[in-house]
């Protein structure tokens, strides 16, 4: 497996150093424990937003640290949750006296590590609230499973809550908005190829040249179904129908449509998918009033995409439109 790296052991650290060198006006990178904070953190009186997760999903989460989005991000090893030491240090670094919201994707490891960190931070007198994203409709949800995975909605939630926190809303309100975004958003992904964790050195799963994996996660874990490759239109229909039927999204709804690349799919193909998605939503009477297209929550070099739909109201739209200035997302400022 070919990789553009110096060594598997240094890949996360080398990339963090690169980010620090590239964006000194936006972010500050801390080592041992590793975390990224917004330049000038903490912002006095503002709710701090912290997220984190395994590396390999760039630009999430470190690329979303900055004005109007996250105050800090904790990168773990590739596809591995960060540890409580990182989260505790980052929580302390961004607490401006208004408390800190932990944004956690629903993976067993992430949830456990953030739980331990929140307990430790509260012992040190910092008010911590948590929201867990679980928007992946590919996973059957029941009381007897770990539940749905947190995927695309996480990016939208970080942006919208960042806008709310920047506007000066208190922790309880930012948390309410976070829960609302998670409740109103649904996602599903698919893969054309596998990906290789640098330290493992080989693809996580084998897949034929004429096959695709539907219902993929963001860690190269196999999806729910292996199928023969179909056209972008058929794939988009498969993903979008599952999403639309799940919430459900109804005629007259305004949505934010997010077509996300898994890391190895060119933008030209993502726009092909978006075109099909616009038609499908139109047929159902669902209006796409905002969109985001590109590689924002990736799975290393995996080829494929995910679709996220978020039902918008005035509040969510206002905070989505609010200015943001981070390494990976910027508008209005």
């Amino acid at each position, binding site marked *: 497996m070919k990789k553009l790296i110096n060594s598997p052991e240094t890949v996360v650290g080398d990339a963090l150093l690169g980010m620090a060198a590239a964006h000194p006006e936006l972010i500050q990178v801390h080592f041992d*424990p590793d975390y990224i904070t917004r330049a000038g953190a903490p912002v006095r009186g503002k709710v701090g937003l912290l997220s984190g997760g*395994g590396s390999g999903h760039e630009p999430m989460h470190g690329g979303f640290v900055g004005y109007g989005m996250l105050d800090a991000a904790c990168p*773990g*090893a*590739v*596809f*591995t*949750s*960060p*540890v*409580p*030491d990182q989260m505790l240090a980052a929580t302390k670094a961004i607490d401006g006296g208004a408390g800190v919201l932990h944004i956690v994707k629903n*993976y*067993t*490891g992430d949830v*456990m*590590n953030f*739980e*331990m960190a929140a307990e430790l931070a509260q012992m040190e007198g910092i008010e911590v609230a948590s929201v867990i994203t679980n928007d992946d409709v*590919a*996973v*059957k949800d029941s009381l*007897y*499973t*770990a539940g749905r*995975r947190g995927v695309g909605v996480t990016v939208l939630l970080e942006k919208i809550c960042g806008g709310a926190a920047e506007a000066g809303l208190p922790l309880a309100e930012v948390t309410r908005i976070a829960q609302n975004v998670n409740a109103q958003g649904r996602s599903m992904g698919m893969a054309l190829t596998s990906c290789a*964790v640098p*330290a*493992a050195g080989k693809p*996580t*799963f084998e897949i034929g040249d004429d096959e695709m994996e539907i219902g993929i*996660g963001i*860690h*190269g*874990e*196999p999806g*729910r179904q292996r199928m023969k490759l179909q056209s972008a239109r058929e794939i988009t229909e498969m993903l979008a129908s599952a999403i639309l039927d799940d919430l459900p999204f109804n005629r007259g709804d305004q949505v934010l449509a997010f077509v996300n690349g898994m890391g190895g799919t060119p933008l030209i193909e993502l726009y092909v998918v978006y075109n099909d998605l616009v038609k499908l939503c139109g047929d159902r009477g669902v209006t796409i009033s905002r969109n985001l297209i590109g590689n924002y929550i990736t799975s290393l070099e995996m080829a494929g995409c995910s679709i996220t739909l978020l039902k918008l109201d005035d509040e969510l739209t206002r905070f989505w439109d609010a200015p943001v200035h981070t390494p990976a997302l910027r508008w209005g400022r």
Partner: protein
Amino acid sequence: MRITAEHVIRFIETIAARVKEQRAYLTELDSAIGDADHGINLDRGFSAVLAKLPTVADKDIGTILKTTGMTLVSTVGGASGPLYGTAFLRASMALADRYEFNEDDLVAALEAALEGIMMRGKAQRGEKTMIDTIAPAIDALKTARSRDVDAHAALRESLAAAEAGMKSTIPMLATKGRASYLGERSIGHQDPGATSAYLIATVLVETVESIQPEAG
């Protein structure tokens, strides 16, 4: 039987060596139903523990186990960091301030560790996790000891139960952890966490077997 701090150090050092040897195997099992990092993460964690051990070599067993647990929590990540970390921390509380302990204390420490894993993971038996290795092993150890067999034989029975427990995860449907996202497709694969738990059980039994029984 007297299990001393020196034995505990050797137990942990041997786990580190065994995890390094089995790193690729554990990662391969995790590729099938998880995210291909179990061996890599445990190796990183136990290598960090190995580097810390000299600083506590002359300390009590509780401190040695606590340092091990804290280091695992800080370095492993994923789910196995909090789970194995909590296990060692709970065992450290059961053996706090001790410089040696006996078979009864061992059972109590293992039970405390299992309780910690079940609390942190919010999991029970039969969900295709490390609990399916550890819980039957502790049961078998207690049953054997109630029959008054000698310590080494009891541990052998316990290890056999651990192995059977590990293998019992193959036909199971995962309902906890990342394998649960696969639904039915998780069936037919041995759980990586149950496998690393068996590896640790093997090392524990080997370590205790190497201790010479006291005369008389």
